[in-house]
């Protein structure tokens, strides 16, 4: 497999307000580097992420989507991350069936104290998606400028 060095992936990261977004902030406070390809969307809880948002991201040309929430049992809303986990399990296997490799989608639990884990996760995810190359599946060229 040839790796295109020029390729920079588009990564959308959904982060819950209570744990993962705070974890991302902590990564910043600790000056932990991760690629600028990751753009974070803040949501109140990982269970707010509708599968439609993820499909939309791929339709618009995202190369990878990652969803971060509180650790199981630590959800600010008690059970939101369990809903997210079930929904994403279904969605990701469907996306895999449609040809979007499982490596392009990920759910990760990052607490507000885990800045280092956030940065490490993003580095690893960007690396994985970069190796896979650009995503063409589901991409709707009519949505492109």
């Amino acid at each position, binding site marked *: 497999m040839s790796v295109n060095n020029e390729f920079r992936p*588009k990564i*959308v990261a959904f982060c819950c307000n*209570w*744990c993962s*977004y*705070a974890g*991302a*902030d902590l*990564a*910043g*406070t600790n*000056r*932990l*580097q*991760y690629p*600028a390809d990751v*753009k*974070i*969307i*803040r*949501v*109140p*809880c990982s*269970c*707010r*992420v*509708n*599968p*439609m*948002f993820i499909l*939309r*991201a791929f339709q*618009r*040309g*995202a190369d990878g989507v990652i969803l971060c929430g*509180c650790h199981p*049992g*630590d*959800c*600010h*809303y*008690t*059970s*939101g991350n369990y*809903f997210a986990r079930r*929904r994403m399990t279904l969605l990701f296997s469907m996306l895999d069936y449609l040809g979007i490799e499982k490596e392009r989608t990920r759910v990760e639990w990052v*607490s*507000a*104290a*885990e800045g280092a884990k956030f*940065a490490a996760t993003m580095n690893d995810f960007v690396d994985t998606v970069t190796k896979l190359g650009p995503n063409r599946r589901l991409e709707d060229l009519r*949505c492109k*400028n």
Partner: protein
Amino acid sequence: MNRIGVFVCHCGTNIAATVDVHRVAETLGKEPSVVIAKDYQYMCSEAGQNMIKDAIREYGLTGLVVCSCSPRMHEATFRKAAASAGLNPYLVEIANIREQDSWIHKDIEEATEKAVILGRTAIAKVQLNTPLTAGESPVTKRALVIGGGIAGIQTALDIAEAGFEVDIVEKQPTIGGKMAQIDKTFPTLDCAACILTPKMVDCAQNDKITIYSYSEVAAVSGFVGNFSVKIKRKARFVDETKCTGCGLCTEKCPQKKVPNEFNLGLDNRRAIYIPFAQAVPKVATIDPDYCNMLKNGKCGVCAKVCGAQAIDYKAQDTYVEQQYGAIVVATGFNPINIDAYDEYAYSQSQNVVTSLELERLMNAAGPNGGTLLRPSDKKHPKTIVFVQCVGSRCDDSRGKGYCSKICCMYTAKHAMLIREKYPDTNVYVFYIDVRTPGKNFDEFYRRAVEQYNVHYVKGQVGKVVPKSDGNLIVYGSDLIEGKRLVIDADMVVLAAAIEPDKSARSIATMLTASMDTNDFFTEAHPKLRPVESPTAGIFLSGVCQGPKDIPETVAQATACAGKVIGLLVKDKLTCNPCVAHSDELMCNGCSSCEKVCPYGAITYEEKGFRQPDRTTKMRRVAIVNEAVCQGCGACTVACPSGAMDLKGFANKQIMAEVDAICL
């Protein structure tokens, strides 16, 4: 037509050093619907805020985007500024170009490009924002304190002092906690009981404080200002209102072989017991695991001797339901189980004890009446070895990664007290570092070394081998001298790490309060909001938030009470307006949303809808109780018809953000 204003903050050089802020403002200024884009050194300063306010008035802005630090930091500041200039505060969006851009990237080109994209994303979202009005909810003027140690006691006393009702829930039969077990306190060497027990009595006598001892929190519902808590009062088989605490039953009970948990199992108590002489409430409790009457119906001695007729063998657990405005967590700590540390022979020899056990052995009310005798043969120990950091600062799975903070000081205290009382005793302390940050702490430690000649050895103990005569051979290394040490010791004392009480996790789950990986409760902000949980209405007091000594615990407990009082004096609280909302025209009443709602905020109602043929048809639709909804958004995804949406984080808004990022 939207009229958006964009303001880019330099944050001194925090942002400006890696993001070309002028270029960001210039590029974003060209976006459709942006009417003004400016950059400024400190957007959060008064001058910066005035710049925003002036622009709102001058350009008649319908939306505001601030590219600055995390919204967790200054969203509230900019919302307030917008509101004071007449713009609805929920028409403000923050693009996080500090924590999530300038601080994590080094390349100016890359960081600037990302800042522009994040700015665009915020612009895309803010155009779809709707003005929201925060509702109000009343505040129940009563606080609950979970845990009756020194932290809980101090918080409760301070809240009661301000005139509010406080309930303390304590799982043990008495309040007092760990401090009641301690002999003397560093660095002043006052007796712990002498300073703690008056506070315990104050709690009992304060008519604003209700103590639920031998009780546990069973369930919590509600939200800040309006918590509803179910308290389980475990059956103590003694009527608290009748028992006078005379203690006759505890002398006559024939079941004498019950390990006394107050003395950490170093001696025995009866099946009916009062934990210690100064217990509050001073009421006997029957231990159902050991009581012959409860186990096989044969005995009944305590009921016969009780003049107050307080014994009730048929008592059952009861439940109390109570409303609270605020909840304080003061669940405290325990030393870790050190059975995994085989090398120190804790489980093999009685003469290897933990520091807390040593406190009891030295305490005047302890098993030896205050004379230090080693447990195996009650002989006076001549050589004592202290081992520091047992399970603290540990890099394997047996212990904890953090410093337990109090061990250096209490070991210096123990060493000093022993040398003071028994000058013929040799005392060795093996340490990694001696940490003495605290008022008069280093002076105290130096006194132990210089005045009391305690042998401090920098190094670790590799192995403790018990001998048949009860003595222990301690193999250690002295890192400074660079040599191996072999000490024939009479006793070994282990400074076991401390960990949060086991009940903390289940309490955190009930309160939806967050914890770190060590099960310490997380504070809302590590520096600026140290006594509040990120969950509104939950406050933290004492070691449940992190290791600390008594003065720090009391300081935090009082700070925590201050925050609670600040909440309870309010008559109304503003609610988060970012709540779910159901479009009744699209809702088909399927109940999907109700099933996923963790707060029971969704109910259904039969509503009449006018049909095209002018008849009215009744249909079942979902109604969200906005005071109860916390805005997680679980229902929005569960809704098959797309009727349910979340204000402030609407489907359209998040879609617009996705589009802006992917373009």
